[in-house]
């Protein structure tokens, strides 16, 4: 074969492979509710994404197989790999929004950076963005951000709940006066999100706050932990993601900082983090938006139907882990938003505008959670135009060395202060972008 032919053959093969990759895993058909998924299963945060999006898709499969879809409307979906990179996330969004006549239902960017990149695009495209437990905190004010839904709890809810938890451990929040707290954070939009509220809390409660950034991806933290050792804080709040969390726990052990004086946020509290850290993680606390575990009827249904009967499950090892359960819960909230919208607009595939209304009017109370088989895996969720966040409730859990064990009931932080700051920040954004705050008509 000549060099020319070899080269031509290589080009043809590459083109065929490219075309195969472009074909979606589950093609969307007419009359179905298409869900666009901007996920990540490779790259530095791939393990976290695999658990989250694995749970998400497992639930969609369950709804199709067990219930025949949402009121008879089958779900279809396509996953686009973002690798947690903002540019790739925006590219995926552009691709997914054209995949179906009704749009991608709602996008879950699973990245604060990608969320910020999409904030100005979604009102134009009329596509709702669900950012459960991440993203832009002031988007909780739905009058300014009608297309953005930081549901379950936002970062400021989480940060103030962590301070309250630490306060309780010290014998009451008033005992925090004069104490030293370090925020060790991922040096990114995600890691910087809690700064304003923690600074306000420090001022209000009289504790000393030190902010220590960790450069991406966070696999080397020697100098940060030596600073912590010198500063001798009473507590360390860990705002980590991916390898940063395990490295922080390992380096804390190396520098002799007690793990039961460390509290992570909900993205720094999964089995992925603690198993990688090994014995260094024992005793470590984290906030959580949902509980892990297999003792929920919905988890059993997925195991029986999606894994055993359909043999379509994402990965059996992940069933019941904190992040997998969170993915299942996120999918459930998306499905319930579609169901809510259908009650108003009819049993047919819903457009972005209709789903937006469905999310805004979501009311998944304790009874509904029980009926859906979630029981106490997550707190009830009720949204409105003014409040795109919901309860703001979190639970705290502690790693025993083998599993996460819940150590508190659902609790909230300083809701009053958070709401005030959310409204102030949203108002600044509205003024800057010339937005007239208000509720969109249904």
């Amino acid at each position, binding site marked *: 074969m000549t060099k020319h032919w070899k080269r031509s053959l290589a080009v043809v093969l590459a083109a065929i492979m490219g075309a195969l990759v472009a074909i979606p895993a589950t093609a969307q058909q007419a009359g179905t509710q298409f869900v666009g998924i901007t996920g990540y299963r490779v790259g530095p945060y791939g393990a976290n994404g695999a658990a989250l999006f694995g749970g998400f898709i497992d639930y969609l499969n369950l709804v199709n197989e067990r219930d025949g879809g949402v009121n008879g409307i089958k779900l279809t979906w396509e996953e686009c790999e973002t690798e947690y990179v903002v540019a790739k996330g925006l590219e995926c969004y552009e691709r997914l929004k054209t995949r179906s006549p009704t749009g991608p239902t709602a996008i879950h960017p699973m990245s604060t950076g990608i969320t910020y990149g999409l904030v100005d695009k979604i009102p134009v495209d009329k596509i709702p963005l669900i950012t459960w437990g991440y993203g832009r905190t002031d988007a909780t004010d739905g009058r300014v951000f009608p297309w953005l839904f930081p549901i379950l709890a936002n970062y400021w809810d989480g940060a103030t709940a962590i301070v309250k938890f630490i306060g309780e451990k010290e014998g009451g929040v008033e005992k925090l006066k004069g104490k030293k707290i370090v925020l060790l954070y991922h040096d990114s939009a995600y890691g910087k999100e809690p700064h304003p509220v923690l600074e306000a809390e420090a001022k209000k409660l009289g504790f000393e706050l030190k902010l220590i950034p960790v450069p991406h991806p966070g696999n080397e933290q020697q*100098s940060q932990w*030596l600073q912590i*050792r010198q500063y001798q804080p009473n507590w360390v709040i860990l705002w980590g993601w991916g*390898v940063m969390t*395990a490295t922080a726990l*390992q380096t804390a052990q*190396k520098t002799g900082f007690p793990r039961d004086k460390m509290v992570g946020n909900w993205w720094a509290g999964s089995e992925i983090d603690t198993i*990688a850290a*090994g*014995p260094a993680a024992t005793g470590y606390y984290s906030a959580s938006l949902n509980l892990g575990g297999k003792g929920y009827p919905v988890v059993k249904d997925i195991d029986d139907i999606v894994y055993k009967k359909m043999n379509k499950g994402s990965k059996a090892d992940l069933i019941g882990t904190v992040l997998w359960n969170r993915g299942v819960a996120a999918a459930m909230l998306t499905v319930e938003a579609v169901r809510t919208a259908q009650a108003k607009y009819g049993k047919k595939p819903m457009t972005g505008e209709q789903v937006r209304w469905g999310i805004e009017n979501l009311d998944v109370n304790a009874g509904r959670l029980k009926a859906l088989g979630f029981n106490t895996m997550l707190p009830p969720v009720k949204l409105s135009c003014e409040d795109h966040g919901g309860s703001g409730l979190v639970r705290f859990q502690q790693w025993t060395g083998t599993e996460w064990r819940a150590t508190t009931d659902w609790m909230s932080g300083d809701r009053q202060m958070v709401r005030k700051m959310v409204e102030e920040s949203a108002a600044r954004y509205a003024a800057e972008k010339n937005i007239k705050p208000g509720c969109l008509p249904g």
Partner: protein
Amino acid sequence: MQFFFEVLIGGLLAGVMYSLVALGFVLIYKASGVFNFAQGAMVFFAALTFVGLQEKTGLPFWIVLALTLAVMILLGVLTERIVLRPLVNQPQITLFMATIGLSFLLEGLSQLIWGSDVRRLDLGLQDEPIQVVMDRFGILISKFDLAAAAVAGVLVGVLAVFFNKTRIGRALRAVADDHQAALAVGIPLQQIWSIVWSVAGFVALVAGLLWGARNGVQFALTFVALKALPVLILGGFESILGAIVGGLIIGAAEKLAEVYLGPLVGGGIEGWFAYMLALLFLLVRPEGLFGEKRIDRV
């Protein structure tokens, strides 16, 4: 002062970990003049293969280590056959681009075979402070870091003997000096390249095991290559000793900078400080501390 020494020693020991990765780059650059962009991916591939084999086979540590080494040697041989051999006499930039392709291929292949789960790797070394030193001097030195430094020391010794005292090592140095002249005197260039890529694979395995034991075996291991780049610029791309000395300087400088300068500018500077230092060094000594000074006729 006690804290200063603690940061300094911690930095020096962290630098040794960077040197371990830098050594892999040096070996390939010495033998072929190619900057192997895939070294970070090789570290990830080696560590993931090790833990993957351990999980699947349940065989003892040393057998799994030997099997992984065999995989890395095979990888080295295949790289020479499939990637390098067809590119002999092509410009250096072509070879460099080929290693970029290899890097993505290895990253994808590793995750395709073993998945993207984070795995724990236990070498039986706890990352804890040495209590005696702590009690006596109040200085924190990690047992793990000290063991890693010892491993790096042994590795450098073995490589030094390999390069200076063995026939293959001398042939390798001849190839590094002049490909054409080495070929003319009968040194088999392709065989030498296979050997050097296999040795680089071995170094990647050692680095992968130590970094993996510290942070868990996960994709972020590929990023350790970024820590090695300023080490190479400082120490010189062709010097094993340079990789060690460069690692020590970079490790100590970035930790001291983060601790003492970081708070003045909001912190988080160690990621780029090492590069800034390397850049400044390039201006003064472009070939690095121990690199060969090249003078070309024009």
